[in-house]
């Protein structure tokens, strides 16, 4: 059964002009008609380059941003229909970990206060019980419980990310949206945090939506992967299938662009280098947004937006050339 179902979600940001009289002159289509589902206990990886809308998508799912249109069903409820005051009830089950472990922790609060805050907001336990829970959580994420009265600046990046994870776990969530949780970390520390997330998933039966620009990390942690380009999902499939048999030209280009730490394989590899940069999402190219950089583009690509269709069991692609 799917725990999270995202249906035709759009998030447009208005672009305004004028000084005293502001008017909308256009929209940035950060997320443009995205649909997918996440099953209980699985990890869905969302990959794409900066500006493709993957972080906006994560925030819309938690309703940290209000969507322009669409539906999101989480655990049997349409999140967009819930009243603001009642959101807290849903967020107890749906938590987020942010990218930057430096700016996502309040520097004036101790680690104990940071992790305890969600418990207080939800009126769980008394002061003593909460202290016990905070210490337990620190242990769970591999930090010494005696760190409880220290401040965030006393910790390294990897340790701060552990604090962020402990905070997200404090309410026993069912699902965690992880927005680039390891991008700011060095490789050796990155591996520690990835392993921790995998252990916690097994222990607490967590479901992850794992947002990252790093295909290798996504490949490692995800069961299924969706690739985004300019606000749309262009391909999604089971992880093995997607990496063995990428069908969309953008996915192929992304895969071939990643340098592999193995000189022989690296020198044998035929690289598909894309020309140009990501076009702005304010005026996306007509038709398939990728056609400006696509080596396989034909005239028809400019005509209509290709729909995401299932070409192999569980493997969806939005490309008319496939």
């Amino acid at each position, binding site marked *: 059964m799917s725990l999270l179902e995202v249906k035709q979600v759009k998030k447009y940001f208005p672009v305004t002009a004028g000084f005293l009289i502001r008017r909308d002159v256009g929209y940035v289509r950060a997320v443009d008609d995205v649909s997918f589902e996440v099953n209980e206990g699985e990890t869905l990886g969302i990959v794409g*380059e*900066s500006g493709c809308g993957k972080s906006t998508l994560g925030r819309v799912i938690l309703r940290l941003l209000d969507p322009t249109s669409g539906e999101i069903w989480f655990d049997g409820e349409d999140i967009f229909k819930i009243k603001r005051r009642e959101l807290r009830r849903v967020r107890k089950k749906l938590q987020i970990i942010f990218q930057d472990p430096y700016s996502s922790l309040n520097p004036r609060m101790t680690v104990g206060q940071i992790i305890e805050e969600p418990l207080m907001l939800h009126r769980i336990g008394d002061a003593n019980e909460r202290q016990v829970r905070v210490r337990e959580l620190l242990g769970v994420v591999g930090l010494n419980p005696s760190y409880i009265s220290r401040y965030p600046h006393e910790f*390294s990046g*990897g340790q701060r990310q552990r604090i962020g994870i402990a905070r997200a776990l404090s309410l026993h969530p069912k699902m965690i949206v992880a927005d680039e949780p390891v991008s700011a970390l*060095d*490789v*050796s*520390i*990155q*591996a*520690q945090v*990835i*392993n921790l997330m*995998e252990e916690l998933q097994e222990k607490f039966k967590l479901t992850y939506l794992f947002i990252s*620009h*790093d*295909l*290798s*990390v996504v*490949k*490692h*942690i995800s069961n299924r992967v969706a690739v985004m380009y300019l606000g749309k999902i262009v391909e999604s499939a089971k*992880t*093995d299938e997607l*990496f063995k048999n990428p069908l969309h030209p953008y996915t192929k*280009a*992304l*895969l*071939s*662009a*990643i*340098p*592999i*730490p*193995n*000189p*022989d*394989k*690296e020198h044998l590899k035929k*690289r598909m*280098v*894309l*020309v*140009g*940069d*990501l076009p702005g999402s304010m005026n996306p190219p007509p038709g398939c947004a990728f056609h400006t950089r696509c080596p396989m583009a034909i005239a028809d690509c400019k005509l209509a937006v290709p729909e995401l269709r299932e070409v192999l069991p569980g493997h969806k692609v939005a490309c008319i050339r496939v």
Partner: protein
Amino acid sequence: MGNELTPLLEVKNLAISFFTDHGEIRAVDGLDFSLGSGQTLGIVGESGSGKSVTALSILKLILPPGKIVSGEIFFEGRNLLTLSDSEIGHLRGNRISMIFQDPMTSLNPVFTIGAQIAEAVTIHQKNSHHDAKKRAMEMLEMVKIPEAASRYDAYPHQLSGGMRQRVMIAMALSCKPILLIADEPTTALDVTVQAQILDLLRELQGELNMSTILITHNLGIVAEMCDEVLVMYAGREVERAPANDIFYHPRHPYTVGLLTSLPRLDDRGESRLVPIPGQLPVMKAKASSCTFAPRCKMAQPKCTESEPPLYSSGKNCESRCYFWDQVIVQR
């Protein structure tokens, strides 16, 4: 490697410290390496391992509280550290150039990109404005900026990250340097753009016969670009070897740790990653034991008693580990 007779660059016993309120911090300690002409040396290590400071020291760009405490840096037979500011000024951007990580902060926002490239040419080549402009235009074409002529008058904020990095490269190469220092040149870029920039760098390197020092934390880029690799840990060299040896026969547990902690596109993806426990130490005193021992799975009592010397671990290979011949990749 390469030209064994007279290396283009030779760094001997380099030590750089930062004198902070909390005492001296040894960012780089006793580093030796050399670079032949036309070669690419990769310097890898985690943040805080001293790789960027090493790069900056070659151009004498270390600012207080940092200080080059000791060492010699020979470039074309001259010791850079004894040169006066004006002498080093003649080399910077001319014979030796540098590309920085962040193209947004290293370009001047109030000048057009054309003017910034032409400035370097005017200063070093003593060209007229007209010639400098022509040269700047050529450079913009060389780094494949589309519609180079119309972009000459663009300001940095009008360009994307990848284009800005191309401008940085154009500027760095405008005086045909023979040594290029690239400090994380693609870290701020998306992978598809990174691939473009790496391709461009490799192409230009061949064209101009430059030597390159490439500083990166990305082992994939090292595999793609480098002839030789220097692995740094806590300001010390822990391993140096030709790129192939590093990837297939690493001889230091830290190098192994870097390789095994990396999720890779070419593995099965079933196994857990093998992280390196703990974190990088801050070096306040001279190393009296192996700096990596507290995080090392192979550590023995001997490792904490004294620091291992650099052992020759093969042809052109060095490892700072007592047990280099027992290091194996568990994967």
